[in-house]
């Protein structure tokens, strides 16, 4: 049996049934890493020796019957903005290039407790700011479907690693689409849970009120299994929510009869690539055929989501990133003459262009005299967007749309025009502003052979509905050509 042919859930079962082992699975992962990592650049840090050692320990605990969960022995990757004790955590930034945390993020602890084996830390847009993984200080990640293209971002390393088979599943974080968009570009399943479902303790913050950790997986079943493991009420995170309905795999019934699905007209208006439009609407048709009630409707305020998002996220980021100052950890500029010059030089040299742009933007919208006009207004827009979704969810169970206006752009195409890049977040950011759960499922390829993703959005705490519909669609769709087989 070839572990690489299995999903994470299947692998977990095979290990439990002694058809394979955690070490064999790790071996398979490293064979792919050996073949493809040099060109794909999915990882910032891979610790091969430690990964095998952990796989061996986990296998022993599985053999002793101590680990019985579905993810025991499964090799996983972790986005490099999640702290891992003793393992370098960089946020793909020069300023944290040498930073080794003293503690492990809660979501990663949950994965480890479930017996998942950490392979390494995946590449990302610097501090999760970007939509292509090109703003990384450690070079861009390439799309495994076609290496001329970006994998999306900011969790591009995680998405590409899952798609290419450099891991079985990965953790990402989603502030404005950073899980869903790269999952869509890489032809995998990515989910952003309801804000507060997964503890943010140990996630190096970008926009604290929007950030949420979530799974990037080969299929919906893996996604449900991973979410079940990482969701927890954590007293260390004040925004964490105690939930009882976290048996997400129970939602995978395949039943969609009577499910009311709304399609926002604005999501299919100008600016959407025809191939994406066609594939996503075809996916909606599949759900309709399986008994869902699919209707178009008008979702209000769609056009205000992007400015509100960039105002709030940048404001929070400008404050969140103040701690990177060269004093306590991370990069410090060599030539330092006095405290303030040290701060300036360290931060000028330590942060990349996009991060500096957002720090400037965020500092501006919070500054005295502009706070009301920008930041407070954006908060009001956020509240109104939430109301628009509330209205939508009084009529529909789920909202269906694309994850991004296009498939993956070519490498080097996006960074020259940041505004254009920001506009690409049109279908994802509103979900973060409203704190909602969203999932993307691959629904076809465009003419160049790049994956298209369908996004489903649910009301707060309705991950189960999302997973139910996504699972039903996935079953109806059938196997999705995996790029790792073509490699």
């Amino acid at each position, binding site marked *: 049996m070839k572990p690489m042919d299995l999903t994470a859930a299947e692998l977990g079962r095979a290990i439990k049934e002694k058809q394979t082992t955690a070490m064999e699975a790790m071996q398979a992962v490293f064979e792919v890493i050996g073949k493809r990592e040099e060109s794909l650049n999915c990882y910032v840090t891979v610790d091969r020796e430690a990964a095998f050692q952990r796989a061996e320990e986990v296998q022993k605990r599985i053999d002793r019957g101590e680990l019985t969960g579905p993810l025991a022995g499964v090799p996983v990757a972790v986005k490099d*903005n*999640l*702290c891992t004790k003793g393992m370098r*955590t960089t*946020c793909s930034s020069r300023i*944290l290039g040498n*930073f080794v*945390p*003293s*503690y492990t*993020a809660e979501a990663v602890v949950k994965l480890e407790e479930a017996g998942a084996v950490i392979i390494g830390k995946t590449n990302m847009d610097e501090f999760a700011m970007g939509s292509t993984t090109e703003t990384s200080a450690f070079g861009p990640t390439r799309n495994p479907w076609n290496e001329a293209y970006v994998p999306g971002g900011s969790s591009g390393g995680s998405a590409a690693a899952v798609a290419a088979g450099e891991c079985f599943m990965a953790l990402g974080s989603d502030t404005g689409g950073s899980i869903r968009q790269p999952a869509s570009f890489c032809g995998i399943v990515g989910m952003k849970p309801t804000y507060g479902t997964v503890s*943010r*303790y*140990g*996630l*190096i*913050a970008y*926009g*604290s*009120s929007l950030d949420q950790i979530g799974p990037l997986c080969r299929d919906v079943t893996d996604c449900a299994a991973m979410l079940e493991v990482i969701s927890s009420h954590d*007293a*260390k*995170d*004040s*925004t964490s929510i105690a939930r009882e309905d976290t048996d997400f795999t129970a939602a995978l019934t395949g039943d969609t009869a009577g499910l009311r699905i709304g399609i926002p007209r604005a999501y299919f208006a100008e600016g959407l690539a025809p191939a994406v439009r066609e594939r996503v609407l075809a996916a909606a048709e599949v759900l309709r055929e399986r008994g869902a009630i699919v209707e178009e409707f008008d979702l209000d305020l769609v056009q205000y989501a992007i400015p509100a998002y960039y105002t709030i996220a940048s*404001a*929070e980021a*400008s*404050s969140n990133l*103040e*701690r*990177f*100052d060269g*004093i*306590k*950890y991370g990069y410090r500029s060599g030539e330092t003459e006095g*405290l*303030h010059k040290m*701060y300036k030089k360290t931060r000028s040299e330590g942060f990349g262009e996009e991060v500096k742009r957002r720090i400037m933007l965020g*500092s501006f919208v*919070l*500054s*005295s005299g502009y*706070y009301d006009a920008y*930041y407070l207004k954006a908060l009001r827009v956020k509240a109104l967007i939430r109301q628009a979704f509330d209205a939508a969810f009084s009529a529909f169970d789920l909202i269906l749309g694309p994850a991004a206006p296009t498939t993956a752009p070519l490498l080097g195409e996006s960074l020259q025009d940041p505004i254009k890049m920001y506009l690409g977040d049109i279908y994802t950011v509103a979900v973060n502003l409203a704190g909602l759960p969203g999932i993307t499922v691959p629904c076809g390829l465009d003419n160049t052979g790049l994956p298209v993703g369908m996004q489903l959005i649910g009301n707060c705490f309705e991950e189960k509905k999302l997973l139910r519909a996504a699972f039903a669609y996935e079953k109806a769709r059938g196997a999705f050509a995996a790029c790792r087989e073509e490699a």
Partner: protein
Amino acid sequence: MGKEKQYETVIGLEVHVELATRTKIFCGCSTAFGGEPNTHTCPVCTGMPGSLPVLNEKVLEYAVSVGLATGCEITRYCKFDRKNYFYPDNPQNYQISQLYLPICRNGSVEIETKDGTKQVGIHEIHMEEDAGKLIHDEWEGCTLVDYNRSGVPLIEIVSEPDMRNAEEVIAYLEKLRLIIQYLGASDCKLQEGSMRADVNLSVREAGEAYGTRTEMKNLNSFRAITRAIAGERERQIDLLEAGEAVIQETRRWDDERGCSYAMRSKEDAQDYRYFPDPDLTPVRISEAWLAERKAALPEFQTEKKIRYREEYQIPDYDIEILTGSRQMAELFEKTTALCGEPKKVSNWLMGEAMRLLKERGLDPEDIRITPSNLAELIAMTNRREINGAAAKEVFEAMFDTDVDPARYAQEKGLLMTHDTDALTRAVKQVLKDNPKSVEDYRGGKEKAIGFLVGQTMKAMHGKADPALINGMLRELLSGEAKFDA
């Protein structure tokens, strides 16, 4: 010099009080003083990437209690805001504080002034975190940071500009201190920095609008505050008299040199870019919780004084001192409840206890005697088991280490002897040895008896009842008997 203008001083205070919680405001680290640098720290209070703050509910409890005790409105929906500024003692480079929705607003405290009572308005009370400490190593030429104090909870009490002189300022601070100490919310020690007062001061000609104010920092004692107020008033008047303007700025008081110097002016004031901290959820205060806080408020000095006057027959002066600290008042009340002799309890506390506090450089809050021990000491003197001098010795031991008085007196041999034969022998011997004093006494010199009592006490190694000796002496001396060998 021409006709002197009449200037009025206008003063408002910003008082920072360190709360007496066991753990920090946003993490579980100890707030204890004196640890090795960076030992009372964790990822949260050192600003490690990915760490998150969680509010210590005890901080909220204390802040609300102080607000209730000062007649404030309690904000039912309050938030924490980030105050952004770069400095190495501030590990996140933002301080979590409250700007937009502070926990308490619009209160007041009543102070006694020479012209009667006066209300000093409280603008607001907010919660915030303390910063770490920078240690400049002159030898190595570097600066080190100790984050043990980082995240220690503070409340900032902002008064209205209602005070007009240093006496009112001190009275206000004393009153705040007393209220907060009664609540157990802080020990409020200026010298140790658990209470810090910044003085906002301006001057104006009588009847005019407020002048431009300055803010004075680094005031570590009431004396420094008094001196700084006088100095700043004078400095501002001199400027105005010279036709110059007062600049709105922050000044640092140098108590050794008795002057202040400007730290930063309003022009280079930083933009703190305050905004609500997204890592902390808003605090919602329920009626039930607030009612609990109200019910838990202690009896404060004002009410205590009234009750003491009714309940205990002790002088007003004693009442003032005893209720001047909750610890002292409690010790008084509990001891009195045990022995039923308020005057004797008060005498011990007003006399010996105050003397020892002064001698040891302690505050009334530091007193550690247990009521049962003090009641026992009083009972021992009542039973004439111990004389006054020995009782004072026992009291001192109790003051220092709260020893059991009976056992201590026993061990130290301080109990009075009840061997009348021995006492009679000693008295007779003293009379025999001191014919001159005997003669003096019989000749009408009443004072001579004191010397004879003293000699007998000496012979008894202090373990006798001086009143008893006095009686025996008088009886023996009343006859004509000779006491020669």
